[in-house]
């Protein structure tokens, strides 16, 4: 079967749609979680959702819906615990992690399910998605993206400065619970793509990557959604082609691709921040008090001499080995 034929297969098209929507939705809500320093919340909800999937498998109900239900309950519970018990919120999160995972495996054992059935949800299984599942995934993902973008000003204000948001008359608790619910929904959206155990990666890694290169919230959330889509669609395609030779699961491929993007962006971000610091102008009024001439200097600074030029009041400084040279008559001053 050639690649073109493969992409004409309905199961492959369903997988591509699911990957595309997951790649958009997970980083959108993930941005708000990272902003509130709750990067691991997605992971916690993912573990809780395992119990929901097992419940669905055991009772014969749709695992997608039971997962949504249990994940939303778990997310609201995490939010309530976080709000009430300020000191050991991470302990509460840990309890839910282990409780969710253990409960899921326990229930699926009781129901007589094979480990393989649960595995499809733990690590994702894009190629076994039914049309009905794709439809539900589409509706949920569009709802998540729509709310994240539509309510972005409010969600941004609440996550950025909770107390200011409250004095501005925003219902902070409602928005906090909304973020938790949206996170739970996008966990279940992503569960067939990357799997419940890796879902948090798609919520956090594209955001962390975007953050390296951006200076504003809007560009961060936009870039994270683009990166998430690239990683999940690219990961799916890469995994499909690689499957001709060896067994490659799409879920881990997507996460590894997202991490590779981060590995590329990280040094660029460090270099960018370094340059931004060099360019940072002196504060006005912070004049050089003493006249400090530098010693022997064989190099003539000028436009295009290879040293970074920084405007400084009425002249130009050249960044040279970590300090700034300014032309003064026949020699250079240290600024």
């Amino acid at each position: 079967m050639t690649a073109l034929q493969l992409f004409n297969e309905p199961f492959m098209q369903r997988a591509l749609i699911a990957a595309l929507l997951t790649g958009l939705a997970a980083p959108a809500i993930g941005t708000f979680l990272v902003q509130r320093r709750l990067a691991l919340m997605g992971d916690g909800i993912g573990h809780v959702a395992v119990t929901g999937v097992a419940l669905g498998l055991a009772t014969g109900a749709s695992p997608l819906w039971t997962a949504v239900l249990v994940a939303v309950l778990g997310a609201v519970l995490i939010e309530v615990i976080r709000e009430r018990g300020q000191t050991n919120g991470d302990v509460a999160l840990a309890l839910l992690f282990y409780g969710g995972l253990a409960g899921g495996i326990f229930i699926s054992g009781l129901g007589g399910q094979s480990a393989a059935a649960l595995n499809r949800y733990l690590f994702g299984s894009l190629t076994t998605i039914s049309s009905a599942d794709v439809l539900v995934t589409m509706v949920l993902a569009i709802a998540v993206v729509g709310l994240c973008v539509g309510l972005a000003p409010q969600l941004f204000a609440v996550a950025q400065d909770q107390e200011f948001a409250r004095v501005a008359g925003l219902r902070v608790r409602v928005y906090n619970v909304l973020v938790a619910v949206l996170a739970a929904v996008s966990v279940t959206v992503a569960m067939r793509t990357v799997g419940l155990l890796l879902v948090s990666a798609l919520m956090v890694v594209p955001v962390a990557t975007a953050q390296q290169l951006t200076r504003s919230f809007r560009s961060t959330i936009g870039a994270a959604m683009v990166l998430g889509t690239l990683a999940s669609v690219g990961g799916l395609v890469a995994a499909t082609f690689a499957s001709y030779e060896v067994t490659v699961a799409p879920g881990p491929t997507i996460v590894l691709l997202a991490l590779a993007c981060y590995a590329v962006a990280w040094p660029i971000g460090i270099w960018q921040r370094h340059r931004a610091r060099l360019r940072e102008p002196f504060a006005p009024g912070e004049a050089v008090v003493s006249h400090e001439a530098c010693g022997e200097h064989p190099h003539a600074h000028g436009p295009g001499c290879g040293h970074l030029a920084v405007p400084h009041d009425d002249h130009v400084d050249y960044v040279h080995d970590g300090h700034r040279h300014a032309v003064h008559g026949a020699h250079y001053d240290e600024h």
Partner: protein
Amino acid sequence: MTESAAVEVRRASVALGGRPVLRGVDLAVVPGDFVALMGANGSGKSTLVRAMVGLRPLVGGEVRLFGTPLDEYDAWSRIGYVPQRATAGSGIPASVWEVVAAGRLTRRKLLRPLSKADRAVIDDALEVVGLADRRRDAVTNLSGGQQQRVLIARALAGEPELFFLDEPTAGVDLPNQQVLADTLGRLKERGATIVLVAHELGPLAPLVDRAVVLRDGRVAYDGPALRDHEVHQPWFAEPHTHHHHHDHVPHPSTPLGTEPHLPGDRP
């Protein structure tokens, strides 16, 4: 009591973890007033401002904003709150413009984009604090004094009448304090009511109409503006010296030899 007070606090008590921080504070601020809440660290001045905007629940007494009890109050667009600067940063980069635009939320409807008028007010707020040219920069790249000005611009973007500022001058260098004073001076000219918490006034001193000094959660002085050194006079640290016994019955102290003003009275 005065019906027209912008903010009125009546016998307000606040406890943090069971420990009383404010004990029966009475204070009324009339529209157009510039009030400085002063006092030593731990005197309760920040707690008082936070109680006024509803961030600290009262264990006794009541707070009214524009005559409405705090529980029923919903005209938050009339209030501009400038918190202490520690809250400016967060996990995700945010540009100066974005933080200031968040202040406009008090006047925006859900799911509506910013109107032209909204954008003009946000630009104006950035202009007033002198940060229009830094609007695209990440807030975390600014100096402490500039971040403080961003938070003031955010409050300005809601076009409020009544400002609460919590220690706007703490950790801010003198040139930035001067910019801050100029900004607040312009607000005062526009008729804004300002309640400001400060440890020291510095360049703000000429603007202050009335000083309220707290000590141990009680109002120790309420009257004309004081100079910084007067606030830290020994008699503020120990207002009971003219008594021979220590008791916890609140009583008015008369540090300047004048009768203290009752809350609601203008000095």
